[in-house]
């Protein structure tokens, strides 16, 4: 359904979608009023109603970070062909233009190189 051919990736996508649906459910009726909408217990002085929301934010952040690192959700860059070449030329052209570009520049090709080195884990394994 999600156009991601790899089976592991499809399963990860489904599971994570389920997770985020549940995370949303914890923030609204009926779960939030039942379990979250109280003053006690207080954590670091903050009321539980606020702490509850902060915990959900932290959990979502952690899940997103793991998904990002594992590269299980569709992260393919543009497929081989004319485009990547044009892209590459653009980046090379840009390097000398200014200090600030150099920093972010380093992640672009670096990532590309890493991906080329381990095709199974990254884009190649999904084709």
């Amino acid at each position: 359904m999600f156009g991601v051919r790899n089976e592991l990736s499809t399963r990860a996508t489904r599971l994570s979608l389920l997770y985020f649906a549940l995370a949303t459910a914890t923030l609204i009726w009926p779960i939030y009023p039942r379990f979250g909408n109280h003053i006690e217990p207080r954590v670091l002085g903050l009321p539980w109603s606020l702490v509850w929301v902060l915990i959900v934010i932290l959990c979502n952040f952690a899940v997103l970070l793991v998904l990002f690192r594992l590269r299980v959700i569709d992260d393919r860059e543009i497929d081989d062909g004319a485009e990547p070449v044009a892209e590459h030329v653009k980046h090379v052209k840009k390097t000398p233009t200014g200090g600030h570009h150099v920093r972010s520049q380093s992640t672009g090709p670096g990532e590309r190189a890493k991906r080329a080195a381990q095709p199974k884990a990254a884009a190649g394994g999904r084709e």
Partner: protein
Amino acid sequence: MMPHPLAAGIVFGYLALALVLGIVAGRKGSGGTDDFVAGERAFGPLVMYFVIGATIFSAYALLGTPQRVVAKGSDAFYVLAYGSVGLVPIFFFGARVRRIGAREGFVTQAELLAARFESPTISVAMGAATVVAFVPYLVIQLKGAGVVMHAVTGWPEQLGAGLVYAVVLAYVLAGGVRGVGWTNVVQGIVMLIAVWVIGLWLPTHLYGSIGGMFDRVVAEHPEYLTLPGPGEQTPATRYSSEILVSILGFSMWPHMFMKCFTARSARLVQLSVVFYPSFLFFLLPLIFLGYVAVLGGGPADDSVLLWLVDLVADQPAYPLLFAFLAFAVLAASMSTGDALLHAGGSIAIRDVLLPIESRPLGRALIRGARAIRLLPAPARPGQRLRDDDLGQTRAMKLVVVMLALITWLLLADAGRLSIVDLLLLAYAIPVQFLPLVIFGLYWRRANGVGASVGLLAGLATVLALFVLQKLAPELAAAINPLELEIGVLGLVVNTLGVVIFSLAGPRPSAALLQRFEL
């Protein structure tokens, strides 16, 4: 004589800096449309991060969050709640959107969908609805700038907002999206520091610690800490429906969605979603400040932040604190305002004008603008605006200026025109794009017939209900007894339309589906 010399110094210094940074950054680009709209798809992680964060945290969030605590208590947590999930859809579809955009040369949301559904009508309807949704949103940003400039310099709001947005206009016009990106970095950093410093220092100074402050709230005003809040204003069901609509619509705001196109890589789009919660933590100090105001009996309007700082007017650090705060609100207003103006210009031309270029209305508009030299003469006679890159960029800049001017004029009338009402309409619009995006990207069967019917029916429902609420509130209440958000009702009609008419209509061709990775 300025009432706050230090704050005035910092504010004017900052305006000058934003101007220089925006213009310098803008000179690096090639000057074409692709550059003006999508920054040549070259945003790195640092810029991308602050572009997303600073765009979302508007002057409305800054002035409105403490105000909401004072008025409605813990209902104000809803911003945190929807923010925790709101951008997540982009994590799933962002990479694909960015790939398709780069391959096909799309720079706006409507371009993507119009191509997927092979329907220029969709592009025109989306573009026009978006510009309508932007206007009240922009008025609020100008209002925030006006409030701060008034507090700092004593000038009337209209004048202060005018000056600030003259600067914004200058760097948006000079730098295109690249200028916007780099000024957002500065603005994001300023906001983070200013809000944390004030939000932690003020409660600690007044009540010993954050915990100490909440002890007082528990003892004196416990109703402000849980739903339904003071005066039982917010039942949990209503709070829930607000959160759901906000989550569904959040990633559909065209200026947010467009950021998928500006990132340097698909990975970067996902990374910015991952780090987005750090911007939510930045709202926490604002909530603390709201409770300080609850304890102190502060006003429940947009002056509450300034009222809070005045609590410590006898402190030696007061001028610095005030300057910081003024700076933060201004940065918030500018970083959201510039993104809206910029996106509004791009959308009005690429999504609305270009698709109707060959129709009589579009032709007349372009011919007229060329005749009075608003647009440059085409390189060769009869050249279409679509092929005239320079003309397109100029046209976008014209719209940006017009949009700023309209907003600024509306600001004078803000009281009478009820911006709050218009915001209701504004928030109902982006959520109507959701079925098209999701079905368009993930459902092979979705076709142009379904998409056009769904979108137009959804927008019409929203508009009709909005007008009805204004003109015949009783009839509106009879149709909508649960008082659901009008956006939700539109969404239901819209989704049904897309599904039913897609199934009834022809299958999209295999070649088309392949272009969209289906």
